[in-house]
C-alpha cells in the first residue's frame, strides 16, 4: 500500500479536487468547504478501498492525510483493534 495511491483515490473521490491538490502533509479539515459529511466520505472511501473501517476516535486523532494513511496501514496490518 503506497501513499501515492491513497492520495490519488482521495483526489478522485472529491469533485472539487484535482490531481496534485493533496499532499501527505495536507490538513484534511482545511479542505475547501470541509464539513462533517467529508469525514464520512473519507471513512467510506477507506473502507471500500482497503476494507478498514475507522471509528470516531481514530478519525479524531488524525490531522493530516499522512495520519489517515498511517492509521489505515496500522489497522490493515492488524496493528490495531479491528472495527
Amino acid at each position: 500500500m503506497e501513499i501515492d495511491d491513497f492520495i490519488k483515490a482521495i483526489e478522485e473521490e472529491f469533485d472539487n479536487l484535482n490531481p496534485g491538490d493533496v499532499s501527505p502533509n495536507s490538513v484534511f479539515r482545511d479542505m475547501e468547504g470541509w464539513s462533517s459529511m467529508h469525514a464520512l466520505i473519507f471513512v467510506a472511501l477507506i473502507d471500500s478501498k482497503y476494507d478498514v473501517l475507522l471509528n470516531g476516535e481514530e478519525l479524531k486523532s488524525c490531522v493530516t492525510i499522512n495520519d489517515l494513511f498511517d492509521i489505515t496501514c496500522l489497522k490493515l496490518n492488524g496493528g490495531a483493534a479491528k472495527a
Partner: protein
Amino acid sequence: MKLFGKIRKISYYLPGPPLSIDSNSNNRYYASQDEIGSDLAFKAVLKLFNEYPEIDKLDIDFLIVSTLVLDYNSPTTASVLHHKLGLSSTCGTIDLPQGCSGFLYSLSVAEAMISAGNARNVLILLGEVPTKAIHSEDTVLRSIFGDAGAAIVVSENNTKAIGKFTFATFGNGFDFLKVERGGGRNPIDKAWLNKYSDQVNQLPFGRIEMNGLEVLRFALKEIPGFLEQTLVKNGLTISEIDFFIFHQASALILKSLQRKCNIPEHKFISNFEEVGNTVSCSIPIALETAAALGNFKKGDKIVLLGFGIGFSCIGTVIEW
C-alpha cells in the same frame, strides 16, 4: 394447495410540488403543516383504489400500517385508517412502526398471514413525515429526508413470489439514530417547546438525532454480510439477481454499499436524488418507479433490503 403471497399493486403519494434542495437536481417533498403520516398513507391508498378498480376494499382482510408519527399512542393508527377507508369489520389491523425497515417487516407479516391461510389480501399502508422532526439547522438531515405515503396490496398467489426473509437487530445502536422526545421515555414538555419556539410548530413530534458516522459504520460493517445471508437463505448467488433495491438511506451509504457488495451499477436501483430518504416508503417507491419505467420483466429476481433505526435489518428476494 400451497398458498403464497405476491405484491399485487403499489401506489405512492408525494406531497408536492417538489422542492429542489441543491444544484444537483436533488428534490424533496414536504407534507403540509396539518398533514401527518396517516394522511399521506390515506392519499396513497385512495390513489391505489382509483388506479386499480379491480381491487375491492371489502376484500382486504388484514391491514398493516407503518409510520413513525402515529395518530395516537393508542388505539393503533391502523384502526383509524380502517375506519377512514370503510374496510370490512372482519379485517384485522396492526401497527408495525419499524422505521426504514417498516415496509419489509410489513411484507414479511403479510406473506406469513397469507401462507398460513389467515388472510387472502393484505393492505400495507406507509406514511412518513420525517421533515417535521428535523431542526432547521440540521442541514445534513434536511438534505437526506423527504415525506411520502405508499400503499401496497399483497394477495395470495399459486406460486412463490416472495422469498424467505432474513432479520437482524443491533439494539446497541438504538441511540445513534432516534427521534428524541418522540415517546414516553422522555416526553415533550414546556421547556422543550420553549427551546424550539423558533421552529415551525416547535418540533411537536420530537427531533431526529443522528450520529452520521455510526450510522455509516453500521451500514458498511453489517449490510454486505447481511446481503450474503439473504442470498444464501434463498439459495441464490449475487450473479443470479437481476436487480437490487436497498433502503434509500443516503447517497453516500448507497454508493458505498454498491461498491462494497460488488453490485453492477445497472442492477442497483436508486431514486435518492428524486425523492430522498422517505423512511418506510423508500423501497416501494423505488420498486414502483422502476416498474413503471418498464425495467422489470416477468420472473426477474429482485433483492429488497431494508435497514435503519434500531438498528434493524431485513432482507428478502422477490420474483417479479
